[in-house]
């Protein structure tokens, strides 16, 4: 587990350094993620059980990690209160648009490997026949 953490922090540090040295748009942790992914593809043996289980645990409590930043909303209550209509419309509108467009394009692409999701077509609240 300590090895796994050292790997994660090490790749973040490299990503962070590249981000600063080259003034890249892409954030350090994201660079670190792609570096680690390409490293693991080159050297599949590095994808050890401890690394898999540690990352699994970390990603399992991903929700918790958003909380401290989310509490920052109390510092923005004035702005949100002043502009709640554009913020609400922008949030709901762009989220629904993005959700629909992504799923629709993915679903419509000709593919032999579609993975049927019966829960979405045979569910209790189904509104029409399965296509």
């Amino acid at each position, binding site marked *: 587990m300590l090895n796994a953490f050292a790997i994660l922090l090490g790749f973040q540090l490299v990503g962070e350094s590249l981000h600063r040295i080259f003034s890249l748009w892409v954030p350090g*942790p994201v660079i670190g993620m792609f570096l680690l992914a390409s490293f693991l593809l080159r050297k599949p043996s590095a994808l050890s059980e401890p690394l898999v289980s540690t990352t699994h645990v970390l990603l399992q409590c991903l929700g918790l990690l958003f909380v401290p930043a989310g509490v920052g909303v109390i510092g923005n209550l004035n702005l949100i209160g002043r502009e709640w209509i554009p913020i609400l419309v922008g949030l709901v509108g762009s989220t629904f648009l993005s959700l629909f467009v992504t799923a629709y394009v993915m679903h419509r*692409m000709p593919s032999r490997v579609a*993975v049927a999701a019966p829960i979405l077509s045979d569910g209790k609240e189904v509104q029409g026949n399965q296509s």
Partner: protein
Amino acid sequence: MNTSALHDLWAQLTPTPLFGLTLTLLSYLTGHAIQRACRGAALANPILISILLIGGILGLTGTPYRTYFAGAQLIHFLLGPATVALAVPLVRNLGHLRRSLPGVALALTAGSLVSAIGGMALVEICGGSRAAALSMAPKAVTTPVAIEVTQTVGGIPSLAAVLAIAGGVLVAISIQSLLRWARITDWRAFGLAAGTAGSGIGAAHAISFDEIAGAFAALAIGLNGLLTALIVPTLVHFWPHLR
């Protein structure tokens, strides 16, 4: 024990990391307990509940956010390694990605563009400020990326974080009804859309249904993080009213 002694104790403990850490963990566990009590209702989101709880406690006790964050930043810091950790599901599910590559690339690009342009345009059309529009643009990506991108383009990082989290909660609440309505019956589409529009919270939701949906959501988080980090600053550069 008199009240002034209690006040002294409170004043001594709140600036220590112990306060922010314990408050965050306890609130999150309370959020989970409430969701369980509501039979897993999507609306009873643990993240939403703990933000409301902590915000309320800080407000009632007059504790500044800065004091709370001094301790809670130890949890916040883990978002960095957690983002790097996304490389593991990415690599493990590369087979699925390769087989659906054209669809994934096209759907992700379309979804990212629609999210960034739609968010900024809607805020502007409804009379919102430049700062609000800039903080809305990267909201579909995983929070650390949203914060970084917002800093790069000059929005408000804490507002971007809040919007990213709110967007994720919205995805978790609405995705099933929306896809049923659109008659989209493919786990790959479900996962990719959840990750593209709702990042980590959307992915957590997708994984709870189906492993392949979870894999595509993880792919979407990683690739959308990269795409948005490229798209948003470029978009802001050419956006008519913002520069």
